[in-house]
């Protein structure tokens, strides 16, 4: 593993180091657990809004909708636990573990880099740059299209959960008590929670596409980085 000093040098002179350890194991574990939880949440959430066809037989013979909702809530807890762990890791992990939570809007150099990346994605730049962590544009979308919506989904999700868990439950006291009055009524929370799902689905589409595309077209590894933690650079040029 590289020391902090090595890491800085790597950032400064990408050409001298072919590989950098970027994503530590807990972060990678979180990434995939989180991705799985969100997949389950989006699928079961969709069915909560539009239930599958009616079940035949006696009511006691089936618990289909109960299981769908149970899976949603269980995945919701996994998501929350993961999220708390991820926030904790931002404090104790390496520098890259903090990127997700930052939007350096007052840093003009960062905006320049983001504009460069935007041009790269708009096919206006011929040669991509090297990045050890997320590139600024990725950071921008991660923050606005992932971090904020996820926070929103957790807050509204547990507010809805607290309604079923009844007044006095932790979710009700912590979330339902202020979220539902803030939106006006429960149906609004449902509608926004539902819209939030689509925001996250859009993020995942763009994210997975960008990860695979960058894996092929950029000058560093992508998908394998989230598996092994190592960022490999494909060339020695700066």
């Amino acid at each position, binding site marked *: 593993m590289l020391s902090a000093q090595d890491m800085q040098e790597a950032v400064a002179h990408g050409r001298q180091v072919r590989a950098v350890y970027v994503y530590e194991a807990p972060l990678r574990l979180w990434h995939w657990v989180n991705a799985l939880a969100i997949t389950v949440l989006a699928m079961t959430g969709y069915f909560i809004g539009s239930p599958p066809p009616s079940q035949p037989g006696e009511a006691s013979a*089936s618990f289909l909708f109960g299981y769908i909702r149970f899976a949603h809530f269980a995945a919701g807890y996994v998501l929350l636990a993961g999220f708390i762990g991820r926030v904790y890791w931002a404090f104790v992990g390496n520098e890259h573990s903090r990127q997700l939570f930052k939007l350096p809007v007052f840093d003009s150099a960062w905006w320049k880099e983001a504009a460069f990346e935007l041009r790269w994605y708009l096919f206006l730049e011929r040669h991509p740059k090297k990045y050890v962590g997320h590139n600024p544009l990725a950071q921008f979308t991660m923050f606005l299209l992932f971090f904020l919506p996820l926070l929103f989904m957790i807050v509204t999700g547990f507010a809805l959960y607290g309604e079923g868990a009844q007044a006095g439950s932790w979710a009700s006291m912590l979330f339902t008590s202020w979220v539902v009055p803030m939106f006006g009524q429960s149906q609004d929370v449902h509608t926004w929670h539902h819209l939030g799902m689509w925001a996250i689905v859009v993020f995942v589409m763009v994210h997975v596409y960008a990860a695979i595309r960058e894996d092929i077209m950029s000058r560093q590894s992508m998908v394998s980085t989230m598996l092994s933690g190592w960022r490999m650079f494909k060339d020695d040029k700066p």
Partner: protein
Amino acid sequence: MVETFYEVMRRQGITRRSFLKYCSLTAASLGLGPAFVPRIAHAMETKPRTPVLWLHGLECTCCSESFIRSAHPLAKDAVLSMISLDYDDTIMTAAGHQAEAILDEVMTKYKGNYILAVEGNPPLNQDGMSCIIGGKPFVDQLKRVAKDCKAIISWGSCASWGCVQAAKPNPTQATPVHKVITDKPIIKVPGCPPIAEVMTAVITYMLTFDRLPELDRQGRPKMFYGQRIHDKCYRRPHFDAGQFAEAWDDDGARRGYCLYKMGCKGPTTYNACSTVRWNDGVSFPIQSGHGCIGCSEDGFWDKGGFYERVTGIKQFGIEANADKIGGVAVGVVGAAVVAHAAVSAIKQSRRQQGDASEQNK
């Protein structure tokens, strides 16, 4: 001299036996144990009578209609004709100046000590001209009577939230009571109309215990608005099983399956219909085969269809709901991703050719 509740009741010919019956019924409808019966009786015997003034603004009188059909006749009679209701222009005998005189009399005699019940709400546009009571805008009467009251009860969704007269675009600017009167304790009893037993119980609670029942964050009494229709719905087993009516005339509807897919708002509506029920506990909407429309929730009239689960979002157009908006977003972004991928692939192959020719040089 100011009379007690009990004295008034006796004067009206109520026997002590009937009086005690009324006390136990009230305790039961408030969800209190038998130990509270003597406490209610004691309060009634010793407390000076608290009059209730009942004002009507922009409304349809369904709250009054509900109230006078309270299933416990004793509770209703006691509250309505004997104990307290001193002014209620739709059901009192006096009219015109006589009626207004009663209002003034109670307001001076019981200054700071009467309860103001409001049915309907004041429209504020056009100087309040859309609702005139006794020749003056209702909002003036409301402010005048509210000034010296002890507390306000907002009857129904009109007084609590605004209801249909406040539906977009709300041309008269019908405004719920708590947005006009801000310096008095207000208890909201929403519903269109609220359940009769809930109404009498709330009044009785306030009269006997001399305080507001415990309220939730939105100002509703927790004892009746603490749970959703869905939490106590007798069709809930069908919901959990995944057994739904999918059309009003299908087998599921005939078998009494859950009405979730037909747009039932039970899961998002706080009220006591599924426990207290209506008309002497005979039934409630879901039991009669129709989904809950959420009439006791804020803005229920502006929240899209009564018959759809994923409700429309008007800001995005008439036919839009979360899934349609999401579907369009996914379609657009998906198309963009595919187009972007195609261009990327061309660029990439050109670049590789370029690299190859560079190496060949």
